């Protein structure tokens, strides 16, 4: 298993953002759904080793990230795209991706090829020398994806990766996620249930810091038959599970 969480909890003062979440995940694409404030981003930040858990156990890539040496090794094989991608406007696309390649300690002689490959994968080859300040929001998102995959990670964490992408790019990105999911564990936090239906083999639905559903997109769809609210079957499943979780709490 690349991800093993057991009763993972994260508190901010008195607010419990992630509440005793247990989750295992191996290679493949796992969609993380949930309403705003459900705890998705906090969970992703803990998986990204940015945020230490308040309690519970967390193992990533068979290592304990609480230990500095293990955390370093996890990060070497980790890719992360945060919800709000920060960037340096004066950097070019290639410089930005190279910067992260170097910080991720890719062997220096492999960096140029890794950078070129990552940029090609997100279809930004012609813009490799463009400064980030000149790019559109969708292009910047693709730059963020490129830096996340430049080290060919075994654990990829995407927070709203398709936000700002046009339909064509979104389709291409889904294909990329499926491709990456062949060898790596890809966790995609998103509001867009169609992304989950198209690219994810599994779905986890979070509400109020807990995982209230874990299964395939088809199983989620079944939960919505005759119950949920929404235009698409998956959306109805999503809203039905959420309504059920709220009633239970």
């Amino acid at each position, binding site marked *: 298993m690349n991800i093993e969480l057991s009763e993972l909890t994260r508190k901010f003062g008195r607010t419990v953002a992630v509440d005793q979440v247990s989750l295992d995940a191996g290679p493949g694409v796992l969609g993380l759904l949930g309403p705003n404030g459900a705890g998705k981003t906090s969970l992703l*930040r803990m998986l*990204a*080793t*940015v*945020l*230490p858990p308040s309690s519970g156990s967390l193992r990533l890539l068979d290592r304990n990230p*609480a230990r*500095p040496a293990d955390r*370093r090794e996890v*990060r*070497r094989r*980790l890719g*992360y795209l*945060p919800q*709000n*991608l*920060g*960037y*340096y406007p*004066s*950097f070019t696309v290639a*410089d930005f991706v*190279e*910067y*992260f390649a*170097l*910080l*991720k*300690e890719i062997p*220096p*002689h492999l*960096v140029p090829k890794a950078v070129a490959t990552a940029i090609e994968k997100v279809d930004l080859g012609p813009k490799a020398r463009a400064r980030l300040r000149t790019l559109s929001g969708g292009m910047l998102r693709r730059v963020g994806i490129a*830096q996340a995959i430049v080290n060919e990670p075994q654990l990829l964490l995407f927070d709203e990766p398709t936000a700002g992408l046009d339909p064509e790019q979104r389709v291409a990105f889904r294909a990329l996620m499926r491709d990456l999911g062949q060898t790596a564990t890809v966790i995609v936090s998103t509001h867009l249930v169609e992304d989950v239906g198209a690219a994810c083999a599994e779905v986890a639905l979070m509400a109020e810091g807990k995982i209230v559903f874990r299964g395939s997109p088809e199983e989620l769809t079944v939960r919505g038959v005759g119950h949920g609210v929404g235009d698409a079957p998956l959306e109805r499943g999503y809203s039905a599970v959420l309504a059920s979780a709220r009633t239970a709490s």
Partner: protein
Amino acid sequence: MTAVAFARSRPVRVFRLEIRHSPVLWAIPLLAALFLFDAFRTAAGFVPVWSVRASVITTAMIAEFGPLGAGLAAWVASREGRRKTGDLLETTVRPAWARQAAALGATLFWLLLAFGIGVAAVYADTARQATWGGPPVWPVVVGVVEVVTLAVIGFTAGTLVPGRFTAPLVAIGTFVASLVGFHAALKVKPGSSLSALLSPATAVPQGDAGVFYHVAPDVAIVQVMFMGGISVALLGVLVARSALYQVSYREFFSAVWRAGRWPFAAAAALLVVGVAASSTAFALTGTARLGVSGWNIPALHDAASDKPIPYTPDCAGTTFTVCVHPAFSAFLGSATAALQPVAAEIAGLPGAPVRAEEVDSGPAYRLGIGTVLLGSASPSILNGAITGTPPVYEYLADADIAPFWGSASIAASGDWRSGFEQEFLTAFAGKPGTFFPTPAQQAVITALMVAAGAENKATLTLHSASPALAFPQQDDSSGHPVGPSPAQIAAAAVRFGALSPAARHAWLAANLPALRAGTITLAQVP
């Protein structure tokens, strides 16, 4: 590791990326303009003596590079906070201190490169004009360490408070702090608090600084220790801060455990070493005392720097010889042209000098703190004096030959020449140690200057309704003029000047003791 492998290594490539994107590059034109219009022009106006010209490094250049560099460093350091890249960067393998070191290193690279070019320009211009000595190293060391320290202060501020207003506030704050230090340094004197010696910006040294005696490096060493200590301590703060990314104080101990003990051990060591260095430097300044080579700190002082620097003076003239220190060779022609005609007017009279020689102005004046020590009431120390047998006129570089704004071209001007002649004749005909000659002495000196061809239309005009004299009108405590008017003194000077040279000579030979004693009145001047 070969040079090629080093150049391709990971830290070097990150450093190169930072260099390419450093905001200091955008500020270089501004730095260049400030440098050219202030530091370089100021240095070019100083006498071409190495220590004097080098003083712009720790004064004007620091004022330009320091606060701007601190602001730029704060801007670079606050980048992760302003651009919201902290989370993303935190997931990378390289520790935060390593990427911060690259960013700070790139900032310092451009700042120090620009600073170095500035120093090279000042020194190249000085080398073109200087006739003696060589470029001093300590002002450069102090300047570099101060630029680094101010940049580290800015970088630390930008890291701890990563807002968009941090950079301008840091620039303004460091500029104000430098000014406060400078003004405190101007007032420092033996017996007062000496902590202001830690300010690199201080008064411009006098023209003969580093000429007759070495400039002791004691204070420079202490300044480097003090500022270097601040830098090292702040680097410790940065290392600790980078290991405590997004940690609240409640989570401090768990975060320390999480980060591992080495970053904190390194941070604590840097902090202790830095504070110890700065504290030691602060304590050492309290032991400073004024010696022939400037401020000496006994624990650091090398007695060898107290020995006079051997030199062979440059001299001209046979009957009346004028000598300058070789550092002032460019002024020899002007000094000779000024002194020989007036020396000829008094040749053969009792006490008339046969030679003029430049002498050391002493440590207080060399440091530019003479007026602080003695007050404005005793400017006569700046005048030359006639001493020894045979009599020799000893004059000071700063007062007579090369005021700090001086140059060889200024020395060729009428004002400069008449001032030099006036001081020479005042030393001869005036009462020793008196700055204001009596009216009779003024009339005689003025007449001799005119006879020697020194009349200058701007400062010495006798034949007009309101004559201008080289001497200032004396006032009483309430500001009212006392004694004879300039017109009365000018009339006596015209009268005395109308005598034949032989008659003037004879009168002086007979009345010189009384004239010097101040007992001859204006009416008694023939």
